């Protein structure tokens, strides 16, 4: 047999060996994948997807451009000095009116309130009062024809006849197919078409038939504006006489028009505040770095990112405190856990089993119970202080403040995370045969040298694994600092929880969370560079 070293190796049937090998292994791979598929699916759906969604929220900001679509377009041309033009106010009126009808304006108010206090109440009040102003036009139209105040004439004029015929057959509470505009209306009455369409869609969203509903004031206003600029003499559809009569009215000198700027200022003085408009303009893009800037104590201004006022800087402090305290907790866990792990690994089986049960015992108790127990132990009239006073170590009038501060958090969290340090250290130490220590001693090393030069270096992977585990758990810990941390012992996670559950500022919470995740990944990377992740063992 000749050795065909030049070509690829062939299997017995002549196919390349690589291909037949991968075919042979494919079945195994597919089976392995199927075995983990349920878990994979579960993790993706319930863990990765929500995390991705949450992280996305930290930059997502479509609420402004979705709620105020016209206003954001108009604001793009505004230079940020003085008050915006009347056109901006007008666009805002149309947007806000539609939003208020759909009860969306308060959400936007809440969102913008994160950036500029007072926005929430401004939007809420404005939404309530907008209705009163639109009626200026309808009142004048009604003098021409009372039909303007009814639903049907509007529907006949604005809708496609076929669509309208279909709508008439519908019962109550049925919105029917999407609204279709009458052909040619778009060019004849562009603003009215737009306003009516917005109205019709909003109605249909709420399962109402647009043909049965009276149009919003925005439609009347749009019509007045259209009639002032468009020529409607060519219109031949339903209500053409009424339309042309109204056009004549609008063209006449005594037609009363609305000043949007004045109207907004009348509703609330704040609409005359340049900062309000700046904030709206600043947050009009669909994606914003605002949340992240907030999370690092900065803010977005028209001149770019800026540091916040020193009094308002809290997140930097919280991040630093979280890292510092996690480090202290990790170190305390190493100091307390190492001897225990050593005993576990070196005692006779019976005793080490008992000790192992003691180490694992906390896992059988609820985390809340353990944390609350520390509250009992550490408070000023608690067990620890009582004992110290009884032993005369501490005078009765100067009891130690051990809880609701950093000390409390460090003590309680060290206790809670200790098993996570002991177990990896133990499983690594278990693999270090006692003969190494004997060998070192027989070579002339004292007990300490034998430990420090021979045993300790071999147990470092366990310390590494335990430290990573404890540090990462600590950095994101929430319940314990919330219960025993007071104000000076809380972590960044408590702030995240506050934003997610109380303030509703999910974007900021997500940005803080993303920063925390980034910090952990950077530390992990640094650890890998310095110690090497191969040096981390959970056993074996």
């Amino acid at each position, binding site marked *: 047999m000749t050795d065909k070293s030049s070509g690829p190796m062939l299997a017995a049937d002549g196919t390349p060996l690589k291909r037949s090998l991968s075919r042979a292994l494919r079945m195994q791979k597919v089976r392995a994948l199927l075995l983990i598929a349920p878990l994979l699916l579960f993790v993706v759906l319930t863990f990765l997807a929500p995390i991705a969604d949450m992280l996305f929220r930290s930059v997502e900001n479509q609420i402004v451009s979705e709620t105020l679509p016209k206003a954001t377009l108009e604001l793009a041309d505004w230079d940020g000095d003085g008050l915006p033009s009347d056109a901006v106010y007008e666009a805002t009126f149309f947007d806000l009116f539609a939003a208020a009808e759909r009860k969306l304006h308060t959400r936007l108010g809440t969102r913008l309130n994160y950036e500029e206090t007072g926005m929430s109440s401004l939007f809420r009040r404005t939404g309530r009062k907008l209705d009163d102003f639109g009626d200026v036009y309808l009142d004048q139209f009604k003098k021409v024809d009372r039909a303007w105040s009814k639903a049907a004439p509007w529907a006949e004029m604005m809708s496609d006849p076929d669509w309208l015929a279909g709508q008439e057959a519908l019962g109550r509470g049925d919105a029917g197919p999407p609204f279709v505009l009458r052909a040619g209306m778009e060019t004849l009455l562009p603003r009215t078409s737009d306003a009516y369409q917005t109205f019709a869609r909003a109605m249909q969203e709420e399962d109402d038939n647009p043909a049965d509903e009276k149009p919003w004031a925005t439609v009347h206003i749009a019509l007045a504006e259209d009639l002032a600029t468009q020529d409607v003499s060519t219109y031949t559809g339903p209500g053409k006489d009424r339309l042309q009569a109204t056009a004549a009215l609008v063209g006449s000198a005594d037609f009363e028009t609305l000043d949007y700027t004045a109207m907004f200022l009348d509703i609330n003085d704040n609409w005359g505040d340049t900062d309000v408009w700046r904030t709206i303009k600043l947050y009009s893009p669909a994606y914003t770095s605002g949340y992240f800037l907030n999370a690092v104590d900065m803010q977005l201004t028209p001149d770019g990112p800026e540091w916040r006022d020193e009094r308002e800087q809290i997140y930097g402090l919280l991040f630093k405190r979280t890292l510092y305290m996690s480090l202290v907790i990790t170190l305390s866990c190493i100091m307390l856990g190492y001897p225990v792990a050593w005993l576990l690994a070196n005692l006779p089986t019976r005793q080490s089993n008992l000790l192992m049960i003691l180490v694992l015992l906390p896992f059988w108790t609820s985390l809340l119970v353990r944390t609350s127990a520390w509250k009992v132990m550490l408070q000023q009239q608690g067990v620890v202080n009582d004992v110290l006073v009884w032993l005369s170590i501490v005078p009765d009038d100067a009891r130690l403040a051990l809880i609701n501060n950093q000390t409390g958090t460090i003590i309680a969290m060290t206790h809670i995370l200790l098993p996570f340090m002991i177990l990896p250290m133990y499983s690594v130490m278990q693999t270090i*045969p006692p*003969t*190494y220590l*004997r*060998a*070192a*001693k*027989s*070579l*002339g*090393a*004292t*007990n300490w*040298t*034998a430990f420090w*030069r*021979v045993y300790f*270096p*071999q147990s470092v992977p366990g310390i590494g694994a335990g430290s990573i585990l404890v540090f990462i758990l600590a950095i994101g810990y929430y319940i314990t600092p919330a219960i025993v941390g007071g104000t000076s012992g809380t972590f960044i996670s408590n702030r995240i929880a506050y934003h997610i559950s109380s303030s509703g500022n999910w974007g900021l919470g997500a940005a803080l969370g993303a920063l925390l995740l980034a910090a952990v990944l950077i530390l992990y990377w640094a650890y890998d560079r310095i110690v090497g992740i191969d040096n981390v063992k959970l056993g074996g």
Partner: protein
Amino acid sequence: MNNDQGAFLAENSQSDAFVEFERVQKSYDGETLVVKDLNLKMPRGEFLTMLGPSGSGKTTCLMMLAGFETATYGDIRLDGRPINNIPPHKRGIGMVFQNYALFPHMTVAENLSFPLEVRKMGKSDREAKVKRALEMVQMGQFGGRRPSQLSGGQQQRIALARALVFEAELVLMDEPLGALDKQLREHMQFEIKRIADNLGITVVYVTHDQTEALTMSDRVAVFDDGRIQQLAPPDELYEAPQNSFVAQFIGENNTLDGIVTEMLSDRCIVRLDDGSLIDAKPVNVTSVGEKTRVSIRPERVETRIDRLGEGAHTIKAEVMEFIYMGDIFRTRLKVAGNEDFIIKTRNAPDQVRLEPGRQIEIGWLPADCRALDAT
């Protein structure tokens, strides 16, 4: 070696025994003795093997000598000085462990340098000694490797070098070749013996492999049940076992049970269980009527009686099984009711192959037939 130790060794060098166990006992639980009344004297430079089945107390003895176990009673002396209360790191005894115990986080050179570092030796001295020790075990190029990158045999050499690098006069080896395959083991046996002889060190070697014990040692101490059953050079141990245990434990052995019926000056007459009488050399039987177990080595049994000289004893036997083993033939016979009587014959050109079922006559010299205790 540290200075007090050196001075003390020099001062006591006139003592006849280098290592001495005197009435040493060891108990772990306070109820049973693992080592019972151990007495042992070793001159300087001797290669002594402690041989015995597991649980016989041999490793415990070694650990007491190394200092990892304390004697419950009795004295252990090194060069005349009692060492019972000296911690292991001050004893200056080199030790090779069963699984080598090379420190995995250090390179080979660092491993060898370790005992020198803890003795606060200078860097250049250390390097020179490490180099010399590595060359001694022919591992000169491997200084930079990690133990995990070496084969079993190479690790074994490094462990040996590490035990020797600080110039210990006494080296203990706890089944050091147990993890190697047969061929490598045999090779390393010679290697260790050669190095020990060259350096003139005293070696206490623990093994349960009797071949290893016989080929390497100056003397072998056979352990059983916490006692030394026999302490003798290999040839004496094999040819003149002093009791049934040693006879059984060392090499292959045929035994026939019986009762002493007559004591003569240099031999005794033993009546076997089936009634036949044989001559034997009394070793630890003293009186008529005593139960005894007679021991004969398979290779000392002759099928061609004419080859034996005057005074040979003969007995009838039936061939049960014949096994061809290449260099020798191994034949199983039924002798005096014992169906496991083995004889070994050399595969010589004139040797006959015995078929099963054949009745033959076998014989031996009474000196090779030892009447031992019947346990």
